[in-house]
């Protein structure tokens, strides 16, 4: 299962420190892991939410670091794309996967798959035994939809102002963090529903 899906910056942000990342969208699936963990002391709901936000921030930072190291190593120049070139942006995106050790930050070991599209990163954190081929495909698909429906290649801030669209997208393609085996027909059917939602 997928633990969380994030959209965050992977470029330097002036208001933040050098290695930090601004999280633009985050969705954590499932119950909070501290309610079933033996290790956590009794936390109040506020503390649990705070802890969860911090965990998400940790993941974003680690992915940011990974993205910049990967881009530095490959030496490929960043291709700037404009709205309308979503397919190209996706093709040119860097991708990778990091191992998040148990405790850092989630209780169990996780794999964080990422796609770096210019200044933003799209990250999927899933359990380590998960089918990563399926996860990779799902991440690409989600990213494509986000780029298209939220016009993310432009200068707008729809990812902040229309985050309900990402929620709706996730509820179809990744319901409650469940990766789905969708052939093109099933995918089309779900995408039609998504498009109908976005049109409202």
């Amino acid at each position, binding site marked *: *299962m997928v633990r969380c899906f994030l959209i965050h910056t992977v470029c330097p*942000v002036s208001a933040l420190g050098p290695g930090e990342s*601004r999280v*633009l969208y985050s969705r*954590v*699936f*499932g*119950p*909070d892991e501290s*309610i*079933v963990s033996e290790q956590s002391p009794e936390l109040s*709901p*506020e503390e649990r*939410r*705070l802890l969860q936000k911090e965990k998400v921030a940790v993941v974003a930072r680690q992915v940011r*670091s*990974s993205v910049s*190291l*990967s881009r*530095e190593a490959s030496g490929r120049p960043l291709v700037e794309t404009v709205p309308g070139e979503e397919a190209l942006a996706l093709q040119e995106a860097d991708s*990778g*996967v*990091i*191992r998040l050790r148990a405790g850092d930050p989630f209780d169990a070991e996780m794999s964080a798959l990422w796609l770096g599209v*210019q*200044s933003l990163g799209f990250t999927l954190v899933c359990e380590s035994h998960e*089918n*990563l*081929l*399926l996860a*990779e*495909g799902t991440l690409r698909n989600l990213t494509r939809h986000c780029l298209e429906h939220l016009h993310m*290649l432009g*200068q*707008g*801030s729809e*990812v*902040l*102002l*229309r*985050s*309900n669209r990402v*929620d*709706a997208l996730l*509820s179809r393609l990744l*319901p*409650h*963090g*469940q*990766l*789905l*085996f*969708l*052939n*093109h*027909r*099933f*995918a089309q*059917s779900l995408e039609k529903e998504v498009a109908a*939602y976005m049109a409202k």
Partner: protein
Amino acid sequence: MYSHGSESLIKQARDIQESELQKFYSRLLKLLQGKELSHETIDSLQRLLLILSATKYTQRLPPELQKRITALLSSSAEQLQVLSSAVLRETLPSPGHEVNYNQEKTSLMNSHAAALLLSQARSRADLSSLCTQLIHGLEVRQAEGSAHSLSHTLPVINTILTHSPESLSEEHVTLLSKKLVDWLRYASITQGGGASSGGFFTGPRSRQPVPIAELDGTVSGDFFTVLCVGQGFTDDQWMNVYSFSVLRHWLLAYHSVSNGNTTADTDDRSEVDGSVVSMVSATSSSSRLLPPKERLREKAFQYCQRLIEQSDRKAHKRIDTDLQKACLVEAVCILDCVCEEDASLVFRTFPCVKALFSRLSSDLTFARVLLPIAQFYLHHGETAAVDCESVWNLVFGRFPAELFNEHFLAHELLRFLRLNLESLQLRVPQYTKSFPNLLKFLAWDSPAVVCDFADLLPSLVTTGTAVELLHTLLDLPCLSATLILQHRSACLPISDTGGRPLLLLDAFRSPSYRGLFLFLLRGEAGSGDTIDRLSTLHELLAEAADWPRVVQCAQTVPVLLYIFFNTVITGADDKLLAHLILVMLERSSLLLNIPKYIKEIHRVFSSQLLRLCKLHPSLVVDQSHELLEFAGATVNVYNKEDIYTHVVWVLGEYLSVSCDSRCSVRLITSCFETLEAVLFEITSSAPPPGTVCPAPRVITTLMSALAKLASRSHDLIPRVSLFLSKLKSVNRGGSLPWCTNEDDLTAIVTRGEELWSLLKAPGVAQSVLTPPPYISTPQWHRDTNMATPLRLRALTNLTHSM
């Protein structure tokens, strides 16, 4: 993409004043009290969401607003459902208004409301109630025939199973297993959604059900799976997709659910009965006699076999070919899991898996599919007595050698190794010899995989290959550069006139240097520890010293060396340790010249040399010839200061009879003379051009070493004392050619004075500078004088405590 606009929006949301916020709340409340769904309502809710999620500190909403928003969860407009669920997830319920998970209202729950309930669950009991209601909802809804709206049920149950398996009961498991069997195996085989086979003139009466199709267009001849297509889908076909998506995890985890009071025994019995039955009916398909879990296993087995067959068909679309690969991975993993539970299935499964392997093994684009197959072979190969050699040749041979730059494959392969380490070490002898190949993953993409190698490296250290492994680790940056060249060589045309790598590419391709690179690129250990022309290789690759990948790789080497030495020191014999010391001395001047790299490696060598000699002091006498050779070369003082200091220190400390009885007076004298010569040389002239003055530590260490050696062979004392007294008379105020700093000089001279005073009383000097073992490692319980009082005290304590 990320603009100032977004940044300022977030800032605004965070900095909103309390008064403005309250005004906003009341405006929103008014909007929600109205009957219509307007754009303004949606926008305001979205804005509220932004305000709540922009900060990590939780806000509580005014109770009336909270109530209104909660009511929106069951609205007919999905946008309102989505937004209300998201808003409520970002805030906390008002005290006293927490959700009661035992209420019977959730049979009408939609996906977004379920998400809220999941995220606000406070205990396992809450999750358990949620689970019960969802399953109840399944029964109710299925009777009504609207199963598509149940699409969220299986994912939510799977989430609960992931986080808190104890929240499910045996009953839940039995019920769901039955349903899964139905959906997986008995879903409709005709197309749904009113598809008809007729053309323009067909009316509703002549609408015949159209059968489902395979991905290559042919009509499907067997039960429905995720690899079947149609114009539209029926509800149970949707549930087929969801069922398969949760299947593997369900099979892995359904054992860890909570057992009821009396179900424990019956469960065991049914397991035994189930496996007896399945052995008997090994080829029969009448599995109706099996209990639900075993029946599910059987159906899962059939489903996976069908998927494997379906994956051979040529799909028309890219998304479908990708899905076929993902299905293959999933199918093999499920078969592996099912065979673990029921070993009798291995004989039915192996032919299928073996055929799949033969089909895919020559196509490297299926590498990620071949990994689960390798896992299957590892788990069940022995049971089936199958030869796995070709599998391991792929995993340890071709994959690292040819696909080192594929990060997903690297991640999955290394994970496979980590999880199966014990098994591999036992059953796959080529594992420990394959480190030259495996390290290619590290050389290419160090930051991503160094964590995995930190875990794997200890298992790759064996007595036979330790020295070669050390050399390989030290040359990892060279391997990195070579892989880049190999990769570019394959990608770039020969006549490319772009940048620097071209010169190196020529060297890479030229026959006179080919052997050097081929050694680095070797796949297996055992053909030699290292090469003679290492310095040539380093010269060639000097250009690559600032390539980012090479620099990143160089940064991981010191860490890996520490892990290497930690592993090798425990349980290694003296011979190997001696060899390692020699390697360290030799390689200290044979490293790729990357800034900071050489210094870091020297630091590791110094600390490890010290550690080795402390543990096995006799090594110093053993290797005295080589150590003296190193210590006698004055040039080492200037360009390997760290290591030099430590070599001198170990010589001074451990070259004595108490450490090794083979230590003769002649050896001590010869060492003394070597060190004396160096000390004279460095304190009589300025350092050679291009180097700095030696640090005071070097000089004081030399002096101390000489004093220690002299204390063991008193004839040498006069010689040392002569030097030390000359040192005393040095002009402290002035600056010397070999020591320009006044403080440094003071420290050196002070130490010299201390040693000189000490050496005036040779007996005292000997006990101070060469303490006998019973002083440096006291074992009081063995000493006849000390032992008696200790024993008496221990006995007294014992008798008192009884």
